[in-house]
């Protein structure tokens, strides 16, 4: 049993490789489409950064939902697999969140005139970033695997509550940040098809990349855990 499970986890499976490969190809296609998309009416070519910004921001928020799901699953079922996947989603999500903040800042400078503004959406995203940094620090600080998994799950669950607050903040306080391109609460689409299609391609590509990276990261974590046991 031990042998079988360690065999299963020690090989990089084809599915993960396939997803990662598709994601890379998709991102390349998406990049090409984004670069050939017509310039925005009011913002010109600067708006093209959205083809990167929107998908990574989506993935960052998705990561916190995934982390929430896997954390709850861990607390209920107590399978270390769930804990490892939750940790992987947070770590990969942290990278995407950093990218979202960075691309947002690069876009804000020519458009708003400043890199950073203390505006609800930005602030809540930055807070979210800080929360998940805390998550990683807590994981590093606790050695006992069970205690670590439990504490991490607690942090992830509390932290994820901030996501809906952040999402709604744009609507609650009408402010500098643009309203959502695709409004999930009403289903209204606020952008032109010429921009929407490349954006959706990018979204799909980044989703694949995200899933592939999370799978890869949890595989590595599973290997580490198996090695510690031996």
């Amino acid at each position, binding site marked *: 049993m031990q042998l079988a499970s360690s065999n299963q986890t020690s090989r990089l499976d084809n599915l993960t490789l396939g997803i990662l490969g598709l994601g890379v190809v998709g991102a390349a296609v998406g990049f090409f489409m984004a670069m050939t998309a017509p310039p925005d009416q009011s913002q010109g070519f600067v708006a093209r950064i959205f083809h990167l910004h929107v998908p990574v921001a989506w993935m960052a928020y998705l990561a916190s939902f995934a982390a929430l799901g896997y954390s709850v699953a861990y*607390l209920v079922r107590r399978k270390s697999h769930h804990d490892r996947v939750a940790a992987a989603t947070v770590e990969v999500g942290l990278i995407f969140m950093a990218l979202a903040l960075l691309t947002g800042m690069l876009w804000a400078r020519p458009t708003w005139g400043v890199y950073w503004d203390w505006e609800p959406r930005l*602030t*809540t995203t930055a*807070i979210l970033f*800080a*929360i998940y940094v*805390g998550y990683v*620090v*807590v994981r590093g*600080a*606790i050695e006992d695997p*069970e*205690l670590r998994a*439990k*504490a991490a*799950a*607690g*942090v992830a*669950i*509390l*932290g994820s*509550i*901030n996501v809906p*607050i952040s999402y709604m903040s744009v609507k*609650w*306080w009408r402010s500098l940040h643009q309203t959502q391109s695709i409004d999930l609460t009403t289903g209204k689409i606020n952008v032109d098809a010429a921009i929407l299609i490349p954006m959706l391609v990018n979204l799909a590509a980044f989703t694949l990349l995200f899933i592939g990276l999370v799978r890869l990261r949890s595989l590595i974590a599973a290997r580490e855990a198996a090695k510690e046991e031996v």
Partner: protein
Amino acid sequence: MQRIFWLAWRDLVLEFRGRTGILSAVFFLAVMLFILAMAFGPNPQNLQKAAPGVLWVALAFAGSLLAGRAFGLEVEDGTLDDLLLTPGSREWIYFGKLLFQFSLLVLVGLALLVLTAGLFYLPLQNWGWYLVVLLLGSLGYAAISTFYAGMLARLRGREVLLPLLLFPLVIPVVLAAVRFTQGLAEGIPVAELADWLRLLLVFDIIYVTVCAMVFPYMLEG
């Protein structure tokens, strides 16, 4: 329900008999206010502008200082396991500790409010609304700090970890409370500030509920 009050009452009695925790916290905050008042200079306008921020940041520090008190004694005396052995679900432990933490914070907050009013020229005409925002804000702080204090109770490095986890999560509370207090100090009608109060209320309800639900999982094992 009764248990919750007894647990909070017992902790409060122990806290006031010991006196070290709450007294040192208030003293620390008083010194901090003095330093901040000096840093912002003698100009009353500057001081008044800084007052709401100072008040809530000081209370956040108090929250993280006092958070360890809720479970510190239980761990020192080894009574945490006795608490866990009581029959029934464990949410009541959370609520009892929350009530204790909340009462401590409100007491410290009242002292702080008077101190900031004196040192930073915070106008207290609308004292009823100050009280409301103090109660809601303290509840938000206490909800999260109690949860994390319980989670990290048995851990050695908790003094460092606690503020690290606590502060990012309480930022919405600080933000809403500061904005509301600022509005009050500037004499803006409360109806225009109601959004901030609503955010505080929503935040409190959500966090108390979720923390109470997850807390039992954190304690076992």
